C-alpha cells in the first residue's frame, strides 16, 4: 500500500515530473525480479541465513528449565562444595564402574545466574521437539547430571560450554571428588508425554528429588569433545548421600504457536502525524518512505514480515532487513530508524551511481534489447519467412505498432535472430527479428512511441507486466501457426500481426445469401417485401447499426444510399415508407428525420422523372 503525502499540492505538469522521478524506483524492480527468480534456486548467502533464521523461528522446540532452590548452594558452600553444575549429557560408555558422559552445554547454578530477587536459580536447556526427542529419550542414554565438586571454587560466570576449560579450575587433571546426581531423560519424557498441559502447548512442571552421591569424577574438555567421567566407588557402602535435592523441571513447547499477526498491538500513542488512520502494527511491519522529486515529496509504503519492498524477500528481522537492503539494493540510500511505535526506513536515490549507467537521452534502457550470442547460430529459415520476405518492408514502416520490443529471453531462442556472434543494442523496431532483407532498419529507434506509462507498478503487481505484455504477445504470435477461425485455413504471419480483427470473419456474401434464403422461407410475404427486408438487413449488418439511437441516422443513410433504386419500384418505396412509419410508431424514428428521408426520396423521384442533363 502506498500512500501519497498529501501535504504538497502540485500542478499538472509538476505532477508529471513528480511521477517521473518516482518512477526511478520502478526501473530496477525488473532487474531485481530477474535476480530474485534466479535466487530461488540459488540464494545468496545473506538470503540463506535469513531464511534459516525464519525457519528456525518456526521450528518447534522444547524449552526446559531446571530450577533449584537458591538455598541449596548456600548449603553446598558451607560444606566447601562448589555450586551445582548441571549438564545435559549423553552416556558414551559405561564400563565397569566408569561412566563417561559427553555434554555440550553445562550450566553453573549460581545464585547470580538466577533472576534477581527470586528464590530460585534456573538453568535453561533447549531440547528438540517432542517427537524428535522420543527415540533419544527412550534409548536411555540422555540424562541430566547434577555435579558438585569438592573443594573447588567455580568463579562466577564460568561458561562450562566453552571449548577450552581452564585446567586450573579443577585442581587435578585426574579429577576430583564430587557429589553427583542423575535424572534420566526417559522419565522426564514419559511424564511430558502424559502431561495434558504439555500436549496443549502449555508449561508442564515436574518436581523430583535427586540423590547426590559421592564419587570420583573427571571433567575433560578437549576441543569439541567435552566429557565428564564418573567413577562410581566400588564399594556401595562407601557411598555417602549428601542430601536430596529438590529439583523442579518445567518444560514448554515453543516456536509452534501460530504467531498471531496481531502480536504486538499498540492501541495508544499512535503518532497521528504520519498515520491518519489506525493501522494495527504487527511485529514485522516496516514503513518505507520514498523521497522523490528532488526530495520534495515523499511516498510511504508498509511491508509485512520484514519484507523488502523491491524484491519481496522476507528478512527475518529488522537487522536482517538492514543487511539485505544495503547489500542487494545498492542504488538507493537507506536510513534506518526504530521508535517504540514503528520501524521505518527512509529511501533516497543515490544520484552518483545512477549516472554511471550512461543511457542516451530519450532512450529508455528498459526498452532496448540486448542480445549476445557466443556461438554462431545456425540460420534456421522457416518456410514462412522466405515467403514473407517481400512483406518485411511494410512491417518495417509500420513502426507505429506499440508492440515493438522483443523479449530478452526470446532473443536467444528466436529463430529469426540468427545474426551470428554479435552483441548489439538493437533499436526498438518490430523489424528487428525479420531483418533478413533489410539490415539497415536495425538501428531505427522508435522509442518515442512508447509513451512512458510507467505507473508505480510495484504497488500492485510488482512486475511491469502490463508494459511488457504487448511485446510478449507479439513474440508469441510468431511462434506457431495460426488458422482462420471459420475456414481453418492457415494464416499468413502478416495477417496474424495486422491490426485487423479477424475474430468473427463474417462473410458478407454468404450472409447476404443466407439472409435471402431465409427470407425466401416466408410464404406470406410478397417478393418486394422480401427484397425490402433483405436490403435493410444487409444495410444494418454492414453498417453495424446496433443501438436504438442509430436508427434515425440509419434511415437517412439508407434513403440516400438506395433512394435512386427505390424510386424505380413503387412497391418497394411503399414498403420503405411503411417501414419508416413502423419505426416511428415504436419511437425509434423522429418525425423530422422521416421528413428528411421523404424529402430526399421526392427529390430522387423528380430527378428520375425529369433527369437533368
Amino acid at each position: 500500500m502506498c500512500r501519497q503525502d498529501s501535504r504538497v499540492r502540485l500542478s499538472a505538469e509538476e505532477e508529471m515530473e513528480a511521477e517521473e522521478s518516482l518512477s526511478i524506483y520502478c526501473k530496477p524492480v525488473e532487474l531485481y525480479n530477474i535476480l530474485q527468480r534466479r535466487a530461488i534456486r540459488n540464494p545468496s548467502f545473506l538470503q540463506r541465513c535469513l531464511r534459516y533464521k525464519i525457519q528456525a523461528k518456526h521450528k518447534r522446540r522444547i524449552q526446559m528449565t531446571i530450577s533449584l532452590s537458591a538455598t541449596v548452594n548456600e548449603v553446598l558452600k558451607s560444606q566447601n562444595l562448589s555450586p551445582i553444575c548441571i549438564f545435559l549429557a549423553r552416556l558414551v560408555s559405561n564400563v565397569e564402574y566408569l561412566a563417561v558422559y559427553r555434554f555440550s552445554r553445562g550450566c553453573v547454578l549460581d545464585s547470580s545466574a538466577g533472576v534477581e530477587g527470586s528464590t530460585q536459580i534456573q538453568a535453561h536447556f533447549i531440547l528438540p521437539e517432542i517427537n524428535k526427542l522420543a527415540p533419544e529419550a527412550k534409548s536411555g542414554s540422555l540424562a541430566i547430571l547434577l555435579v558438585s565438586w569438592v573443594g573447588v571454587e567455580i568463579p562466577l560466570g564460568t561458561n562450562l560450554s566453552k571449548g577450552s576449560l581452564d585446567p586450573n579450575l579443577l585442581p587435578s587433571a585426574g579429577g576430583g571428588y564430587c557429589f553427583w546426581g542423575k535424572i534420566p531423560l526417559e522419565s522426564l519424557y514419559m511424564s511430558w508425554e502424559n502431561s495434558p498441559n504439555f500436549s496443549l502447548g502449555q508449561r508442564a512442571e515436574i518436581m523430583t528429588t535427586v540423590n547426590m552421591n559421592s564419587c570420583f569424577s573427571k571433567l575433560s574438555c578437549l576441543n569439541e569433545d567435552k566429557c565428564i567421567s564418573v567413577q562410581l566407588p566400588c564399594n556401595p557402602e562407601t557411598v555417602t548421600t549428601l542430601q536430596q535435592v529438590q529439583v523442579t523441571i518445567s518444560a514448554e513447547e515453543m516456536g509452534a504457536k501460530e504467531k498471531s499477526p496481531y502480536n504486538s498491538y499498540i492501541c495508544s500513542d499512535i503518532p497521528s502525524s504520519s498515520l491518519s488512520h489506525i493501522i494495527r502494527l504487527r511485529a514485522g511491519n516496516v514503513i518505507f518512505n520514498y523521497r522523490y522529486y528532488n526530495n520534495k515529496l515523499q511516498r510511504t509504503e508498509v511491508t509485512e514480515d520484514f519484507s523488502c519492498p523491491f524484491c519481496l524477500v522476507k528478512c527475518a528481522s529488522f537487522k536482517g532487513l538492514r543487511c539485505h537492503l544495503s547489500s542487494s539494493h545498492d542504488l538507493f540510500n537507506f536510513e534506518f530508524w526504530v521508535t517504540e511505535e514503528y520501524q521505518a526506513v527512509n529511501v533516497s536515490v543515490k544520484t552518483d551511481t545512477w549516472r554511471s549507467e550512461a543511457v542516451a537521452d530519450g532512450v529508455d534502457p528498459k526498452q532496448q534489447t540486448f542480445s549476445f550470442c557466443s556461438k554462431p547460430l545456425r540460420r534456421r529459415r522457416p518456410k514462412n519467412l522466405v515467403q514473407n520476405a517481400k512483406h518485411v518492408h511494410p512491417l518495417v514502416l509500420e513502426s507505429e505498432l506499440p508492440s515493438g520490443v522483443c523479449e530478452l529471453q526470446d532473443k536467444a531462442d528466436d529463430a529469426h535472430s540468427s545474426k551470428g556472434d554479435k552483441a548489439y543494442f538493437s533499436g526498438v523496431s518490430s523489424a528487428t527479428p525479420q531483418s533478413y532483407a533489410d539490415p539497415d532498419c536495425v538501428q531505427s529507434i522508435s522509442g518515442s512511441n512508447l509513451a512512458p506509462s510507467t505507473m508505480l507498478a510495484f504497488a500492485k503487481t510488482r512486475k511491469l507486466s502490463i508494459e511488457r505484455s504487448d511485446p510478449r504477445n507479439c513474440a508469441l504470435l510468431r511462434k506457431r501457426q495460426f488458422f482462420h477461425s471459420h475456414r481453418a485455413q492457415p494464416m499468413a504471419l502478416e495477417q496474424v500481426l495486422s491490426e485487423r480483427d479477424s475474430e468473427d470473419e463474417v462473410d458478407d456474401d454468404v450472409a447476404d445469401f443466407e439472409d435471402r434464403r431465409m427470407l425466401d422461407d416466408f410464404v406470406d410475404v410478397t417478393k418486394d417485401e422480401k427484397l425490402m427486408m433483405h436490403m435493410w438487413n444487409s444495410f444494418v449488418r454492414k453498417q453495424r447499426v446496433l443501438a436504438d439511437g442509430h436508427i434515425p441516422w440509419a434511415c437517412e443513410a439508407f434513403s440516400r444510399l438506395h433512394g435512386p433504386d427505390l424510386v424505380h419500384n413503387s412497391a418497394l418505396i411503399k414498403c420503405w415508407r411503411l417501414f419508416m412509419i413502423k419505426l416511428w410508431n415504436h419511437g425509434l424514428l423522429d418525425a423530422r428525420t422521416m421528413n428528411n428521408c421523404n424529402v430526399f426520396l421526392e427529390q430522387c423521384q423528380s430527378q428520375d422523372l425529369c433527369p437533368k442533363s
Partner: protein
Amino acid sequence: MSGKFTIGSEPVMGLPTPSKKRDYRVTNRLQEGKRPLYAVVFNFIDSRHFNVFATVGGNRVTVYQCLEGGVIAVLQSYVDEDDESFYTVTWACSIDGMPFVVAGGLNGILRVIDAGSEKIHKSFVGHGDSINEIRTQPLKPSLVVSASKDESVRIWNVHTGICILIFSGAGGHRNEVLSVDFHPSDIYRIASCGMDNTVKIWSMKEFWTYVEKSFTWTDLPSKFPTKYVQFPVFTASIHSNYVDCNRWLGDFILSKSVDNEIVLWEPKVKDQSPGEGSVDILQKYPVPDCDIWFIKFSCDFHYNAAAIGNREGKIFVWELQSSPPVLIARLTHAQSKSPIRQTAMSFDGSTILSCCEDGTIWRWDAVATS
C-alpha cells in the same frame, strides 16, 4: 417401407439370381501388407491411364497398372511419415494434364501427389477431422470435393491449393459425412451423405464466380475468400441408418446404407424453394451380407454396371440401366473371405478390382461367355 408408396410407385426389387450375361474369373491376387485397404480407384480422368489404379491403406498410397493376362504391375508407392491412415483416394489432374493422386484419411489432410514427377504437390489443411471420401469433378479435374468426419464437405482447387467452398452449417450434415459425388453434367451440383442418415444435394451456383476465381488466384491461398454454403438444396431421408456411399446416375442417385441394398431414387428438387422437394424411389438392388458401414460400390465409366463387395468377400455386379434390375454376376472365391471395402471397375467393365480388409487386392477379369 412399402406402405409409403402409392400404387405404381413401389421400388422395383432386383432379383439376386445372376444372369450370367458376363462372367468373371480371378486372374490375380496381391497382398499389400497386412493393413486394411480402404479404397481402390481407376484413373478415369486421363484416357492414357485408364488401366492405372491406386489403392490406399494404412499410411501408404500405391499406384499400379493392370496389364494383359491378369498381370498387375506396381508403379509407385508413397508413404506418409506421420501416423496416417488413408481412407480414400481419387485421381485428379493439373491444368497441364499431369496426373495427380489425391488421398486423405485420418489426419484430415488432403495429400495431392504429383504422380508424374513422383513428388507431393500440395497438402490441404482445413478439415477438422478425418476425411472419408474425395472425388474429382470429371468436367473440371482440378476440382476435388472432400467429405469429412467434421461434418463438412469442402471443394478444393488442386492446382492453386485453395479451399473454395465449405458446405456445412445450419443446414449441413449433423454427423460424419461419408460420401460425396459430383453430378456428371450439372457442374454446380453435388450430393453428399453421411452418418446422419440423410443424403443432401448442394448447389454451387451462387458462388460459381469464386470457383472460377480460384483458378486465377495469385495471392496466398489462405487469403482466398472461402465461402460457406449452409443450406443444401435438398435433404432426403431415405435410409434409416448410416449412408456410406452415394453416386449420381444421371439425375438419379444411387445410395446405400447398411441394410443390404443399393437404392436408386430420383430427387425432385424445387430450385426456387429449397428444402422442398420429394423423393421417388425407383429401384433397389439387394446385396446380401452388406451390413457393415464403409463399404463402397463403384461403376464403370459409362455407368452400365456397378460392382459392390460385401463383408463375406463376395462381389455383386449389377446392371444399372435396366429395369427390373439385373444381376450380371456374383463373384465368389474360396479364399476371398475378408470384407471388401471398395471395388473398382475398369473403363469398360471388363476388369473388376476389389480391396479387402486383410490387405489383399483381387483382380477379376471378364471371360467370354457363350
